């Protein structure tokens, strides 16, 4: 008992929350550059194949895209509220908001699953015979669509795992109202996932 108290005291002394957040931001910038490269490829190919990109985008369902945008924006809100709750020393509410975030993330992935499987059923997936018969611009559009929304979806999955771990740590009082930088950093990651979607949505679903 005495021992664990000492450890807690020591970890408090050696803590550097600003440093931890700086590290997280640096990591986020590498993520921005990763996606930035893909947005660059998208920009050049779209510029070269404007008409084909428009035609290809007609196949995407704007309704599902909009729904997923609303879901992700709301999940960003619930993460922010979870942090506000723990700052107000409300452990229970913080966990409730994290559960809401996880549920919304699950909704997002379920929508993505239905969206992709409908596309697969119509023979639109990388390497599909029907897709390869289309003009080059449309093949490029769908190649970018699958890589970019796929990598984004992978980030959503990773975010869900991280937020689940964080939720357990709040339950076990590893993360508390005066030591919650892990929750903040996980929140930053989640907001980045939301940010990337804010750009993916108009670029893939809203070309007319």
């Amino acid at each position: 008992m005495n021992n664990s108290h000492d450890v807690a005291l020591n970890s408090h002394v050696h803590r550097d929350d600003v440093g931890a957040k700086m590290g997280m931001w640096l990591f986020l910038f590498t993520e921005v550059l990763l996606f930035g490269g893909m947005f660059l490829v998208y920009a050049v190919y779209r510029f070269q194949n404007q008409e084909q990109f428009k035609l290809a985008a007609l196949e995407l369902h704007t309704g599902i895209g909009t729904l997923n945008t609303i879901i992700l924006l709301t999940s960003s809100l619930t993460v922010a509220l979870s942090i506000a709750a723990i700052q107000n020393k409300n452990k229970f509410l913080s966990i409730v908001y994290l559960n809401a975030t996880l549920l919304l993330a699950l909704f997002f992935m379920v929508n993505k699953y239905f969206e992709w499987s409908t596309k697969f059923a119509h023979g639109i997936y990388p390497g599909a015979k029907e897709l390869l018969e289309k003009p080059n611009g449309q093949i490029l559009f769908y190649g970018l669509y699958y890589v970019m929304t796929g990598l984004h979806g992978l980030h959503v999955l990773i975010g869900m795992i991280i937020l689940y771990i964080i939720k357990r740590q709040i339950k076990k009082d590893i993360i508390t109202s005066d030591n919650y930088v892990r929750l903040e950093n996980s929140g930053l990651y989640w907001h980045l996932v939301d940010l990337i979607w804010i750009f993916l949505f108009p670029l893939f679903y809203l070309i007319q």
Partner: protein
Amino acid sequence: MEHSKKHPGYNTYILVWLALLMFTSITVTIAGIDLGKYTLLIAMFIAAIKSALVINIFMHIKFEEKIFKVFLLLSGMTLLIIFVLTFSDFLFR
């Protein structure tokens, strides 16, 4: 406890969320109107406003120390330079 004063409360977050939803509905509505060349420009402009809201409020950048803003500016400029250089090569090749 001066630090805790700087944290935005529940209401701020909910207001920002409402603004984000509003901008989403605007961008979807505008996409249905044919504005030719300006369609993409307007869509990107709205996306930029939404990002600014998320970064400043949800990601707390507005309330962080200056060094975080310098980081953000630096990475933003890096991305911008990469785009400008690529397009200046690509367009005038």
